[in-house]
């Protein structure tokens, strides 16, 4: 009897010590080197063993920003305990959407502007500039296809007409409209499908009334190389590009006629899979994108496109520094 009481007291003391220890550790990381302002234990994704029986296949399109985003969502979901597979490098959005419907992937990151403009053929001038409005529209349309759209990321990305700063200064170019009268001597480079798109070459010709000396199709990965090498005077770039953030060598012309809609990223997922995955799915997706402001995505893009690091490693570091994973 006395032995039991001693043991109980010891156990209580042990528990108290442990509790104090945990509290101390938790408090200690607040002043640690990783995160400031947010308590890491709040942000940390908790692994739920029940999620292990759900398999999520995360897809992405085939350029740097999409690879990074795909990795961020995939690693976040993995931390939440899901069984995650990756199918990055799917190609264009129609293929990606089809892959969701066919059950080949569970979801992928899409841009509101692309979802509305490409998947649902909404004319560019009818796509809302406001992020929440665009999201609401996309969400409604996608729901009809059995696809769930999650709330948008802080940052927005859009196509833009870029050029060398030296060219812009020489010809006094600030807006796209400034190209009038000058562009017929200029070569425009863009992805092959840009030629037929109203939010790309077709729109530049119709809405802006511009004529170009030539349109050169190039792979997205070469969009800055063509400017560097002088193979093109103008190139279709992305506003969140690493190259724009890290040097003044390139200039983006302002879309004064608002031809090209901006898009925040929304994660699209098959409703079936989302339902099966439970509330942790939504929570994780919304959590991991919380710190994706424009400077942050530019930083991540820079690490991949300039420092040539791997998207997986870059995403991992982002998740760790944000306190989402350990």
């Amino acid at each position: 009897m006395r032995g039991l009481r001693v043991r109980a007291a010891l156990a209580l003391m042990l528990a108290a010590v442990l509790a104090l220890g945990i509290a101390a550790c938790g408090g200690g990381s607040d002043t640690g080197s990783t995160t400031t302002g947010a308590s890491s234990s709040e942000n940390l994704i908790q692994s739920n063993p029940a999620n292990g029986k759900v398999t999520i296949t995360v897809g992405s399109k085939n350029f740097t920003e999409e690879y990074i985003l795909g990795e961020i969502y995939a690693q976040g979901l993995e931390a939440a305990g899901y069984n995650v597979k990756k199918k990055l490098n799917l190609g264009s959005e129609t293929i990606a959407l089809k892959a969701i419907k066919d059950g080949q992937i569970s979801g992928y990151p899409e841009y509101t502007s692309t979802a509305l403009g490409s998947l649902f053929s909404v004319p560019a001038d009818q796509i809302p500039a406001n992020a929440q409005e665009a999201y609401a529209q996309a969400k409604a349309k996608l729901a009809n296809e059995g696809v769930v759209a999650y709330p948008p990321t802080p940052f927005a990305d859009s196509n833009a007409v870029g050029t060398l700063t030296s060219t812009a200064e020489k010809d006094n170019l600030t807006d796209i409209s400034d190209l009038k009268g000058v562009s017929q001597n200029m070569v425009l480079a863009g992805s092959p499908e840009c030629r037929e798109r109203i939010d790309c070459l077709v729109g530049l010709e119709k809405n802006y009334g511009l004529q170009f000396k030539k349109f050169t199709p190039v792979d997205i990965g070469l969009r800055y190389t063509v400017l560097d090498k002088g193979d093109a005077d103008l190139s279709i770039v992305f506003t969140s590009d690493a190259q724009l953030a890290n040097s003044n060598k390139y200039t983006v012309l302002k879309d004064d006629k608002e031809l090209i809609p901006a898009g925040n990223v929304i994660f699209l997922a098959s409703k079936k899979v989302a339902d099966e995955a439970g509330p942790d799915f939504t929570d994780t997706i919304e959590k991991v994108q919380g710190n994706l402001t424009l400077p942050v995505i530019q930083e991540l893009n820079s690490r991949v496109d300039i420092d040539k690091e791997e998207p997986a490693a870059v995403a991992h570091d982002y998740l760790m520094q944000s306190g989402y994973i350990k």
Partner: protein
Amino acid sequence: MTVVAAKGLLFADAANRCAPGLPASFCQHHETTGCVGGNGLFCPGWAVDNFDRYVGPFFRHLEIVAISVVAGFAVALALALFSHRHRVLIPPLLGATGVLYTIPSIAFFFLLLPITGFGLVTAVIPLSAYTLQIIYRNTLAGLANVPADAKDAGRGMGMSDRQLLWRVELPLATPEVVAGLRIAIVSTVAIATLAFLAGAGGLGAPLYAQPDFKTNIIMVGALTIAMALTLDLIVVLSRRFLMPWQRARPR
């Protein structure tokens, strides 16, 4: 969320604002100088540090090639053996394998995508089809080149048609068959760099992820060629080892 589009503004902002949940030091300036940042011809330091990014794709590539060549070889061999007996089938089979050879693999990949989806199957089918012609033709040529006296000797010994085929004709046909196999393997290794378009991975995937980074392109190219030549060497050595009685034919 407005799009920042003025010159220079992005550059200044990146240093000032990061995100509330991240330390300001997370967002840095990245120099576009030096070998890696400035896209020099070949950056050995980077190649050594980042070698692991090619390891997975390398073995995946090997897997794709192995499956494609084995499948193609099996089918082509079967067709050759069958049409060796029923010679009327040879012209149409030559034509069919020729057509399959002519269809560029990239077109074939995109054709199959809606049917077989992303993955190994979509890559393997066109790659195997591509090998059919060379293996089929070479096997037929090998069988046709079997000396008549060898066959007579076999018949003289009382061999049945089947025994003749497996004990006399095929062994004597191996030089041509192996020659065709070698060509098939090397070609398949090269074309499989496009398999990433079918969602199957392979060495083309890291290439396409950074298609303007010269070091990356050279690494993928070098690894692909190394794989092709090594596999070729293995086949040559295996043949010499397994069939030392075959005189090395002049190439």
